[in-house]
C-alpha cells in the first residue's frame, strides 16, 4: 500500500515534470505516448475501418478477415518491434524510432477496428437495408445513410478496444529507447526503483481510463436516437447471425 502512496507522491513531485539531458519529464513522456498512440491509431483506422465496412456491407471475406486479424493478434508485439527496429531503415522526416513503433501498434490496433466495423454493419436489420434499397438508395447511400449510422455504436466500440490496446502497449516501445510513459516502468524495473515503476503503471492506467471514458461518451452520442433501445434481442436472433455484440460495450472481436 505504501508503494502506491509513494508512487502518487512521485507523480505529483514537481521535479518529475521537467525534461533534463538524462531524464524525461511526465509532460514530455505523455506527449510522446499520445503522439505514438495517435499516429498508430490513424494508420490502423485508415486500414481497418474501410476494410471492415467493405466486409460488413458485402458480406464477402468475413472468414478470411477473422483468420487474418486473429493471426495478427497472435504476433508478439515486442518481438515484432525488436525485428523491425533492426531491419527498417530510418525515415528522414520521422523521429528515429517512430516507423517501427507505429507499424507494431497499428498491427495491434487493426483487429478490433475491423471487427467493430463489420459486426456493426452486420448488426443492422436486413429488412431495413432491403427497405433502403427498395426506395431507390444507391449502395453508397445504403452504406453511409443507413448501415454506418445504425452500426455506429459497434464501430466506436471497436475504436475503444483499439485505443485501449494501443495505449497500454505503447509502453513496450520504451524498452528500446523510445520515450513514452513506459520509460518509467522500464527504468524503474532496471534501477530497482519500484516507486518510479509503479508511478509509470499508474500513469498509463489513468491515461487508458480517461481515453476510454471519452470514447464511451462519444459512443453514446453517435448512436442515433431509438437505435440502442430498439436493437432488441428478438431482432438479433431473427437474423440468426449469433453475434452477441451490443452497442455501448467494447467489441470482443473474433467471436
Amino acid at each position, binding site marked *: 500500500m505504501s508503494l502506491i502512496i509513494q508512487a502518487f507522491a512521485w507523480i505529483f513531485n514537481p521535479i518529475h515534470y521537467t525534461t533534463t*539531458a*538524462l*531524464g524525461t519529464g511526465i509532460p514530455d513522456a505523455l506527449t510522446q505516448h499520445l503522439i505514438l498512440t495517435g499516429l498508430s491509431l490513424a494508420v490502423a483506422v485508415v486500414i481497418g475501418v474501410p476494410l471492415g465496412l467493405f466486409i460488413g456491407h458485402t458480406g464477402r471475406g468475413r472468414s478470411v478477415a477473422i483468420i487474418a486479424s486473429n493471426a495478427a493478434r497472435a504476433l508478439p508485439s*515486442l518481438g515484432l518491434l*525488436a525485428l523491425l*527496429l*533492426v531491419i527498417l*531503415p*530510418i525515415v528522414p522526416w520521422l523521429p*528515429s*524510432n517512430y516507423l517501427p513503433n507505429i507499424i507494431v501498434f497499428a498491427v495491434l490496433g487493426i483487429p478490433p477496428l475491423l471487427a467493430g466495423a463489420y459486426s456493426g454493419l452486420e448488426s443492422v436489420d436486413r429488412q431495413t437495408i432491403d427497405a433502403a434499397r427498395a426506395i431507390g438508395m444507391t449502395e453508397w447511400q445504403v452504406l453511409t445513410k443507413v448501415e454506418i449510422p445504425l452500426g455506429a455504436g459497434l464501430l466506436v466500440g471497436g475504436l475503444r478496444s483499439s485505443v485501449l490496446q494501443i495505449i497500454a502497449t505503447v*509502453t*513496450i516501445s*520504451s*524498452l*528500446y*529507447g523510445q520515450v513514452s510513459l*513506459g*520509460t518509467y*516502468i*522500464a*527504468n524503474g*524495473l*532496471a*534501477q*530497482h*526503483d519500484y516507486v518510479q*515503476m509503479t508511478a509509470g*503503471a499508474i500513469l498509463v492506467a489513468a491515461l487508458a481510463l480517461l481515453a476510454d471514458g471519452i470514447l464511451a461518451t462519444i459512443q453514446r452520442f453517435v448512436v442515433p436516437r431509438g437505435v440502442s433501445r430498439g436493437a432488441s434481442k428478438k431482432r438479433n436472433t431473427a437474423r440468426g447471425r449469433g453475434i452477441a455484440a451490443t452497442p455501448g460495450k467494447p467489441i470482443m472481436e473474433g467471436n
Partner: protein
Amino acid sequence: MIAAGVIIAGTSLLLAGCSSSSSLSGGGSSSPAPKESVVVGSANFSENVILADIYGQALAANGFTVTYKLNIGARAAYIPALESGEVNLIPEYSGSILDFLSQSATANSPSDVKAALDKALPATLKALTPSTAADSDSLNVTPAFAKANNLKSIGDLAKLPSVTLAANPEFQTRPDGIPGLQKIYGLTNLKFQAISDGGGPQTLAALLNNTVQVADIYSTTPSILANKLVTLTDPKSLFASQEVVPIVSTSKDTPKLASVLNKVSAALTTADLLELNTEVSGASKTDPAVAAKNWLAKANLF
C-alpha cells in the same frame, strides 16, 4: 515490462517448486562417496548460459550430479534463488555482482574487487577464484564518428558539444554509469537513451543509424569486431574489473568442486569468451551446450 515482471515472478515460483529435489543429497558424506549434486543456474544472456554449461559439464565429467536451471533472468531474480539454495552455482562477473550486493562499492582493480566481493557476499555464498577472462562494460563509437572527432579515450567525449549514450536503464543510476562518467571524466554533455537489451542488436542498430553516438556494449560481444566499432579506452578505470567468477553455495563448496572449477577458470581467457559468443550468437547459431563441450575438449579439460 509487465510481461518481464511476470516472467521473473514465474521463474521464482518455478524455482521454488524445484527446490526440494536439490536439498536431499547435501549433507551426505558417508563412506562409498555418494555423488555430490549441484544445481547450476545462469542469467538470461547467452555468454552466461555458455559459462554455466561449461561449469556443469566439467562437474558432470568429475562425477557430480548436475541439474541445470538456465536463463533464470536478471540478478534480482537469481541471487535470491542462490541465497535460498534453489540454485547452487552461477557464473558471475566480479564487478557487477559486487555493485549489486553493495551499492557503495568503489573497488576497481581485480584484487580489490575480489576482496570487496568476499566481504559483501552473504555467509551462504562464496566466490571461488576468478578467471582472468573478463567481460566488462565498454563504450563504443562507430569508426566514422571516432575519426571525425578524433576520439580515443572516454575523456575525449568532453570535446563534443553534446553526445547521446545508449545503455541499459540501470546505467543512468549505477555508480560506474552516468554518475561516474560525469564525476570521473567530467562529461557534462551527455544525453542518455535507455535501451534494455544489454548492448544487443537494438543498441547496435541505434548506434549504427546515429540515433545515439556512444553505446555501452559488453567487451566480449562479437558485434564490436564485426562492425569495426572503436572501443574508447578507460584510462581512469571507471568500469570495475569484471572477471568471470563462479559463485557457489557455501554448503556445496567442497575441495573437489573448487578444484574442478578452478581448473576451468584458469584455462578460460577473454579471447575464449569472444570466440564462444561468436559461435553461439553469430551466423552458426551453435547450441550453448555444444559450444561449451567443444571448448572443454579444446582446452583438454576432463
